[in-house]
């Protein structure tokens, strides 16, 4: 019997601090072309620090190997599908990476003269126009750094509009199926949150809405399609109810991948929405960010947009800071320009017809998955699915196996899990969104895996409960991590 030996690169890679040796360096700096300066003299001795204790000291080779080895412990879109619901994990086009790195764009300083920033300003103007067209809205701000910040920005604008009309109002209505950032953003904006229960079919209950909308309600925050992947068929009615009482309709645009070229929020009563460029518009997730969360609004909200705004000055672009109703700034400078460049590249690559095909393919793929998985997993809401579908673990729960366990077993089949236990209105949810960039081949591999697991649950539930088996790390102890948090490395 050959003793199994692990190749050394897959052994537990030490942290940088553990593989450091005094004096090792990986950097080079040019020689100074000016005289060196005594730090204590220039800064005051009391301001000069001792060495940075514990900071890494590794060579270039060690650094490259460290990061390369670590990277191999990650799953990624480049490896295979991420069926994460509402995350829209589509392929990240590499041309985006090339254009974002062009020197004139990557090295542009935000305070450089406007005359020398026309390229960046044109990109922003073009993207604003494209997003306005796609969403059917009147004006767009590209300032928010993420979807959640977009939500906050929009709520601040709605508040400003309502205040100008005489009453900012007190609360925001949020469906129980909503993403957690919705109530969190509302709270930061100073509003109380009131939950509105979904109907039996999983959509907005317009009769309930009608009962509770009054002059204390500033807005309803809705996701459309909702987090079940179902189009809110009563959205026009909901908009009417709200507008009749002077309230506004906000849409979380996370699920825009289902609608491009098909239906536009501006046409179904939405007053403001945010988009997630890292979802619908292909900018890379990068392990958790950066994203960007532009906000699109109807004319009534336009005066309140964050400043500065782009304006045309003869043949050039200029910034307009004289916006007296603006809610102000939500971040320094103009926006996550590097992300905006990537999103515009994506829109140029697809064009109008291409974006429509993105949405129709996304919906096609999701419906295919639904049909293949329906015989094996419980489908609590049977309305038409758009770009995502939500199953529940009810059948498997009878064997004591839950959505989290199935997700872990899916890893053994070479896939990233779907979204587990969300939305909250489905007990034991399995939220699945394939996106349009998955081929039938990949979709079939995924459904075959899910079907196989469903069978495993019947014959060997305990095995499924202890998955995964094939990963470098088995299940981690999240309880210990939370009870006694260790959030940094320490020597000794």
């Amino acid at each position, binding site marked *: 019997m050959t003793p199994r030996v692990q190749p050394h690169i897959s052994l537990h890679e030490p942290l*940088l601090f553990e593989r450091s040796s005094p004096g090792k*360096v*990986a950097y080079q700096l*040019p020689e100074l072309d000016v005289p060196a300066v005594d*730090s204590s003299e220039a800064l005051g001795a009391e301001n000069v620090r001792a060495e940075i204790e514990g900071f890494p000291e590794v060579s*270039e080779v060690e*650094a490259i190997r460290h*990061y390369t080895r670590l990277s*191999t412990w*990650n799953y*990624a879109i*480049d490896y295979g599908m991420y069926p994460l619901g509402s995350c829209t994990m589509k392929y990240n086009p590499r041309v985006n990476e090339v254009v*974002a*790195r*062009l020197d*004139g764009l*990557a*090295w542009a*300083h*935000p*305070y*450089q003269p406007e005359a020398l920033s026309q390229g960046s300003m044109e990109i922003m103007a073009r993207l604003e126009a494209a997003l306005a*067209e796609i969403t059917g809205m009147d004006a767009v701000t590209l300032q928010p*750094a*993420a979807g959640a*910040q977009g939500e906050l920005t929009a709520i*601040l604008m709605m508040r400003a509009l309502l205040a100008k009309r005489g009453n900012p109002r007190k609360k925001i209505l949020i469906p129980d199926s909503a*993403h*957690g950032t919705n*109530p*969190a953003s509302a*709270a930061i904006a100073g509003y109380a949150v009131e939950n509105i229960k979904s109907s039996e079919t999983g959509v907005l209950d317009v009769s309930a809405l009608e009962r509770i909308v009054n002059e204390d309600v500033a807005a309803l925050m809705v996701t459309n399609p909702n987090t079940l992947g179902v*189009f809110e068929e009563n959205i026009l009615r909901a908009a009417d109810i709200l507008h009749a009482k002077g309230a506004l309709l906000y849409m979380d645009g996370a699920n825009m991948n289902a609608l491009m*070229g*098909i*239906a536009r929020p501006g*046409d179904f009563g939405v007053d403001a929405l945010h988009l997630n460029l890292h979802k619908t518009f292909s900018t*890379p997730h*990068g392990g*958790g960010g950066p*994203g960007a969360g532009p906000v699109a609004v109807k004319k009534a909200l336009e005066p309140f947009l964050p400043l500065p705004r782009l304006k045309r000055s003869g043949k050039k672009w200029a910034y307009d800071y004289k916006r007296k109703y603006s809610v*102000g700034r*939500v971040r320094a400078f103009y926006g996550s320009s*590097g*992300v905006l460049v990537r999103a515009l*590249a994506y829109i140029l690559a697809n064009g109008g017809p291409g*974006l429509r095909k993105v949405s129709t393919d996304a*919906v*096609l793929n999701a419906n295919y998955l639904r049909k293949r998985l329906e015989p094996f997993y419980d489908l609590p809401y049977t309305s038409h699915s758009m770009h995502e579908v939500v199953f529940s673990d009810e059948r498997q729960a009878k064997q004591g196996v839950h959505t989290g366990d199935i997700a872990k077993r899916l*890893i053994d089949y070479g896939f990233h899990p779907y979204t587990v236990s*969300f939305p909250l209105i489905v007990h034991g949810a399995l939220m699945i969104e394939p996106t349009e960039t998955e081929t039938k081949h990949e979709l079939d591999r995924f459904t075959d895996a899910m079907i196989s697991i469903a069978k495993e649950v019947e014959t060997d539930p305990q095995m499924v409960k202890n998955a995964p088996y094939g990963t470098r790390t088995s299940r*981690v*102890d*999240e309880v210990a*991590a*939370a009870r006694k*948090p*260790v959030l*940094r*490395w320490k020597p000794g």
Partner: protein
Amino acid sequence: MLDVIGAGSVEDLFAHLPEAVRLKRPLDLPPGISEYEIVEYFRERAAENANGYACFLGAGAYYHFRPVMVDTVVSRGEFLTSYTPYQAEISQGTLTTIFEFQTMICQLTGMDVANASMYDGSTAMAEAAMMAVRTTGRGRVLVARSVHPEYRAVLGTYSENQGMPVEEFGYVTEAGTIDLEDLDRKMDDLTAAVIVQSPNFFGIVDQVGRAAEIAHRRGALLIVVFTEAVSLGLLQPPAGADIVAGELQSFAISPSYGGPYAGVIATRDKYVRQIPGRLVGQTVDTRGNRAFCLTLATREQHIRREKATSNICTNQALLALMASVFMTVYGKQGLRELAEQNLAKAHYLSGRLRPRFCGKFFNEFVVKAESKTPDQINKALLKKKIIGGLPLGRFYPELADSMLLCATEMSRRADMDAVAEAFQ
């Protein structure tokens, strides 16, 4: 596939949408173009921006060399195209790098715990203020005028709707440091936090220790902000800070016309449950091996919803990774040498001019224009393909005759000489 679904055509899948919401025309966008045409389009845009200029702007965004290794690492598909590491078993790469990042930030700032990054320095400061309010139970915040003006504007936007009054205190005109008397006068028992920046917006090393005394005497927290991370290679970590909020753009994050950047919040152990944003913690797997996972998630929006410490869902992971690789490449010795070079360059330039403030500065300083206006000086410099400093009139009317100059390891002697000459 349509057969499996039981639909006649793809359009059937949308038939259930109400007629009134359907878009009845194609999107008014040109058809898609090829990869080559896309690159060409952006090359044209890039050419319309400054190219090949020497630049002496700082003011919250800094020009530093980007080690080649940074893009090598972040371009790996495993880092670029991976998702938030909620599934620990298949995200140990990201989780480990974030744990290292958190550690390095603590080492740099002298704090006990750091989060996995915020959107940028400006929102990190606003979130730090909100954190102080939560922690102390008090409502009011004092912020120095020598803190970056756009950061203060963001704080104003965030604080307006939370019943969190924000008041400013001034700086002393000779030194350019915070006016301690003004701070002391404005301090009270309702103040949750005092916010100062060091080096401040004028580039000057500020009186952090004295500010800490004043704040702590009245039970308030001290928040210290930094915008130039390279300064931490040489400057003492902020003594007496309860929360540090900073911007890491200097660490290999391209200036990129203002974003995306990566902010960070670091604090003391006792405040860890109030810190916003993601945290990665160390644990073990079922085989007893060290592993990492997201932790203390109950602070966050996806669990706490409206009672969360913040609405933030992202951490700027890829940018934090760039910063981590930068910190690794430079390391203990290199970050110091880099900071020393910045100090040398800026002091060479200042030696040929007369800084307006007498306070000690790192790589930025303010100069008053004597015979011409700042705009005139900059106009002359543009003809030499040099972008001069930031005229301060737009932010500080009392300093309309001055500009903020920044010199880094990238600044060349000949260009600095040209800047000095332009002031004659």
